[in-house]
C-alpha cells in the first residue's frame, strides 16, 4: 500500500533522490508510532515534514538518524540500502541531525562544540595532543562560510543567543561533507529576527547543494523556505505537495485529515 496519492511529486525516474524511505515501520510495545512511512528527499532541496503531535514525525526522524532501529521497511541513501545502529553510523554515512535541544555543551567554546567527537589531533603513536590552532582556524572558516554572526569561535556557547546557538549547531551539522541535514524545529524557540537569520542560513545551505529535511509546525515558514512538503498523519505518510503549488490551507487539511490524501 502506497499512500503517495494526489502527488505532484516527480516520479523516481524524473528526479534525483538522495534518500528514499519505503514502508518504514516502528512500534514501541503496542504503540505503532510509525505505521507506514514512505518519503523521498530530492537532492539539493529543502523538504519539510509536517504533521500533528503524535503523527510519527519524531520517530521517523529518529529512525533516519540512527537513534531508533526501524521494525520494517527500507531506507536507501544514494541508491544504497542502509541500516544504522547508532547516530555515529548515520553521521558517518552523511546524515547529520540538528536536534531540538541542539546538543551543545554550554561550558565549551564554539570551536570545541563544532569539533566535539571529531577532534583533530597530532602527535606520535598513543601520545596525541589536540591540534587546537588547526581546529580554531577551521572552525573560523566553518563559521564564516555560513556568515554566522557569533562573537568569536573562542567564546563559550553559554554566552551566545538562541539564534547563535542554533547557527552553531547547524554549522556543525553542515560542516562535515554531509549529504543530508535533518533539522528538528530549528526556529521553535527563536524571535522574529533570529528566525529570519536561521531561515537565511537554511536557504544558503540549500543553495550550496545540501539536502535538508525540515521538521516544522510553522506553515508560513515552510511556504517561505521549503521546496516540497511531506505530510504525516496517525503514523502514516499521507502525501507530498510542491510548495509552489500548494497553500497553507491545503497543508492544514492534509495534516488534520480534512483533505483525504
Amino acid at each position: 500500500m502506497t499512500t503517495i496519492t494526489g502527488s505532484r511529486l516527480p516520479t523516481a525516474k524524473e528526479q534525483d533522490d538522495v534518500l528514499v524511505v519505503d514502508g518504514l515501520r516502528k512500534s514501541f510495545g503496542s504503540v505503532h508510532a510509525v505505521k507506514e512511512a514512505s518519503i523521498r528527499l530530492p537532492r539539493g532541496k529543502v523538504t519539510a515534514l509536517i504533521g500533528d503531535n503524535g503523527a510519527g514525525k519524531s520517530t521517523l526522524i529518529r529512525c533516519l538518524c540512527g537513534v531508533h532501529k526501524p521494525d520494517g521497511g527500507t531506507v536507501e541513501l544514494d541508491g544504497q540500502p542502509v541500516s544504522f545502529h547508532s547516530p555515529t553510523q548515520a553521521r558517518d554515512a552523511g546524515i547529520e541531525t540538528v536536534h531540538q535541544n541542539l546538543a551543545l555543551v554550554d561550558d565549551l567554546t564554539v570551536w570545541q562544540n563544532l569539533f566535539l567527537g571529531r577532534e583533530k589531533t597530532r602527535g606520535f603513536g598513543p601520545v596525541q595532543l589536540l591540534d587546537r590552532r588547526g581546529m580554531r582556524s577551521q572552525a573560523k572558516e566553518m563559521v564564516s562560510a555560513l556568515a554566522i554572526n557569533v562573537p568569536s569561535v573562542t567564546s563559550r556557547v553559554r554566552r551566545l543567543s538562541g539564534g547563535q546557538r542554533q547557527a552553531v549547531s547547524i554549522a556543525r551539522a553542515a560542516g562535515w561533507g554531509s549529504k543530508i541535514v535533518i533539522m528538528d524545529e530549528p526556529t521553535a524557540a527563536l524571535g522574529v529576527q533570529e528566525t529570519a537569520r536561521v531561515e537565511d542560513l537554511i536557504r544558503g545551505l540549500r543553495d550550496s547543494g545540501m539536502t535538508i529535511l525540515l521538521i516544522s509546525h510553522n506553515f508560513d515558514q515552510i511556504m517561505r523556505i521549503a521546496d516540497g512538503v511531506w505530510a504525516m498523519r496517525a503514523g502514516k505518510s499521507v502525501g507530498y505537495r510542491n510548495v509552489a503549488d500548494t497553500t497553507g490551507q491545503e497543508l492544514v487539511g492534509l495534516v488534520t485529515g480534512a483533505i483525504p490524501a
Partner: protein
Amino acid sequence: MTAVATADRPRLGERLAAAPWPELAAPAALLLLVVVFGAADSTFLTTGNIEAILQASAILVVLAVAQTFVVATAGIDLSVASTMTLGAVVLGQVYSSGAGIGWAILAGVAAATAVGLVNGAIVAKGGITDFIVTLGTLSAASGLALILADGKPQPVLSKFMLDLSASGIGIISWSVLVAAVVAVTAHVVLFRTRLGVHLLAVGGSTDAARSTGVRNVRVKMSVYLISGLLAGLAAVLLVARVGAAEPASNTSFLLNSVAAVVLGGVSLFGGRATIIGPVVGALLLASLVNGLTLLGVSQFYQPLAVGIVVVLAAFLTRFQK
C-alpha cells in the same frame, strides 16, 4: 548579517571578561593567608617552613587532581582516600614479604587502580549513582586494608622511600616534584587531549556528548580509573612520608580533596574544571593548617577553620552566574 569571526586567539579584553573569577578566589585567599601569617609569624616565610608546607600538601595535591577528574564529569569519588589507604597497605605487605621496593610500589599502585576500575565499571556500565558506589568502595577498601594489615601498621624502611620525602632539589623534595609532575600532566590531559574535552563535555551535558558521538561510558570509566591510579601514587607518597603503611581511615584526606576542588572553583555539577585551581586549593589548605599551628592555635580548631574556608568558597561560587 556580518560575519564576525575575530582573531584566532581572544583579545585581552575578552579574556578578562571571560575570566573565571571564582577560580581566582583560591589564589587570592592564598595570597592573603601568606601575607597575614607572614606578618604574624616571622618563621612562616622561611625556606624551611615553605618546604614543610609544600611537603605537607604533596599528597593532597595528587588526591585533589584525582578528585578533579571525577568531579569534572559531574561525578564524585568518595573512595579516593580509602583507596590510597588500601594501596599503602598493599605496598607495605608486599614489601614486608621480602619483595623489592619497586615491586611493592607497583603492587600498591595496581591495587588502587583496581579499585578505580571497579568504581568506573559499576558507575559507568551499571549506571548506579556515583555517590552510592564510591561510598560503598570507601568502606570496602578500608575494610580490605584492615584485613590485609590485620589492623596493624607495617613499617616500610627503605632508602628509596626515605629519599622520596627527605631529599630533593633545594627546598623541593622528590615527593613535591612527583605532585608537580602529576599536576602538569593532568593539566595537559584535561586541556590538550581528546579525553579532556570529552570528559568536560560529558560533565557539561551528557545528552549533547552522547549525540555527538562521545563515548560516555568509556569516558566515565577512564576518570575513575585515573582517580584510582592517582590514589595509588598518593599511597606511595603517604608511605614515604609516614615511614609506614597504616590501615588508618584517612577521612580528612577525602574531605580535603573535595574541599580543594571546591576552593579551586571547579563546578561540582561538572563541565567546568581547571587543574591549577584545585592545586592552589590544596596549597591553601596546607598553608592554613601550617599557619594556625605556627600561631599556636590548638589542633582542634584546624578542622573548624578548614570548614569555614570551604563554605566561604562555596558561597563565592554562588556568584558565578
